[in-house]
């Protein structure tokens, strides 16, 4: 679990698994999710093992998340935007977009 050292940044309202969350402008989606809760940010499509962000620089692909209905996006490479909907993925994605 992460915490913000200062809370003076501009608030960006997003949802994480449907829950309203205040993120801060400039943060990546992965950072916002890590600050929201500890533990897994997805489970793997291979064995269902719990995983979370590892490298934060777009290399490891552990922070794959569903962002605005689009699965398997690298959460560390996308900045939060007002109204964004983020979901932690369970296993393999669906072929269709979620919404």
């Amino acid at each position, binding site marked *: 679990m992460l915490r913000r050292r200062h809370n003076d940044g501009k608030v960006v309202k997003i949802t994480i698994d449907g829950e309203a969350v205040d993120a801060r402008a400039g943060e990546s989606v992965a950072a916002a999710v890590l600050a929201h809760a500890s533990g897994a940010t997805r489970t793997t499509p291979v064995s269902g093992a719990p995983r979370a962000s590892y490298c934060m620089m777009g290399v490891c692909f552990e922070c794959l998340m569903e962002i605005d209905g689009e699965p398997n996006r690298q959460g560390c490479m996308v900045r939060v935007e007002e109204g964004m909907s983020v979901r932690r993925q369970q296993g393999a994605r669906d072929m*269709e977009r979620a919404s």
Partner: protein
Amino acid sequence: MPDQTAPGNFDVAVIGGGMIGPALSLGLLERNLKVCILDEGDDVLRVARGNFGLVWFQGKGFGMPRYVEWTRRSATLYPEFAAELKEHTGVDVGHANPGGLELLLGEEELAHRQRYIGQIYQQGGGKEYEVEFLDRKQVEEMLPGVGLGEDVVGASYSPIDGHVNPLFLLRAMHTRFQQAGGTYLPHHRVSEVRKNGGAYDVVTEKGIVSAAKVVIAAGHGLRELGPPLGLDIPIRPQRGHILVTERTKQILPMPISSFRQTVEGSIMLGVSAEEAGYDDTINTGTVAKIAERAARTIPALRHLNIVRTWAALRVLTPDKCPVYAESETHPGIYAVASHSGVTLAAVNAKVASGWIAGDPAPEQFDAFGVERFDAQKTA
């Protein structure tokens, strides 16, 4: 460790560790022959790794009914072959035989396919040929939940078609080969085969391997090795591209000639044909065309990410049919070449191996010799 130097004499030295060599070798080992596979290093032209994984019947054997029979025979033997591999090695090669489709976009493609399939049927003397045509509605029923693009007018379908995980097949064959006492020799690139008394010396980068019989199952390597041994077979490379998506939930219940969902969930997309010599680099234009057709056929594929593309070089004969030939000038040297190493793996292991061991040739083989290319040359 399998990486040792030229150990002793073998009954059969098989050149090539791809799809064909190991399959033949498994059959040879069952006859208690001493067999080695001579393979190259890690980063070479690996046709066997560029496979799509189809065990495919429909559309093969144009102009050669014997190839239709041979393919059918392999598809029929596959369940037993896959079961044996699993029993011995624990590796499930993922063989399934749910039938297969070739989806047709537009009336023109449909008419073309009907003509082509009809000709293969006629060439077989109007005997049994298990391919039928489905209209769009029938295809939709076969692929529930898969939204077809507007251009899809129908498909050709064969219940004989199926698929397999080609990588696991390769691993299972290699595992079984070593379990059954075969000797696998990587880093043994072969430069030459020489007659030495009643046997042959196979000259490799690591020394000489002696064997009574030699099978050249070396893909494009046959172009170099064959001619001095009386096996001048006009194979050529044809570049094919494959795209692979990320893993997704299971959606395709059966293989489609240009899409196949693996047991792991990724969808493979093909297929292309290009004349590019031995250049196996990726052509972005080709990748784009495959993607465009895939999106036209099943629009939902547009959402999936492509994680990998690759290009491999098919081993193609002028008539696209396989070669099984024993040299006339060098008896005991065999050439086996085909772009359908996956489809033919079962029949290679179960039947073609016997021919190398000394059984009479299967009746189909009079069509698979090298003479047909001489005829084409003079024609």
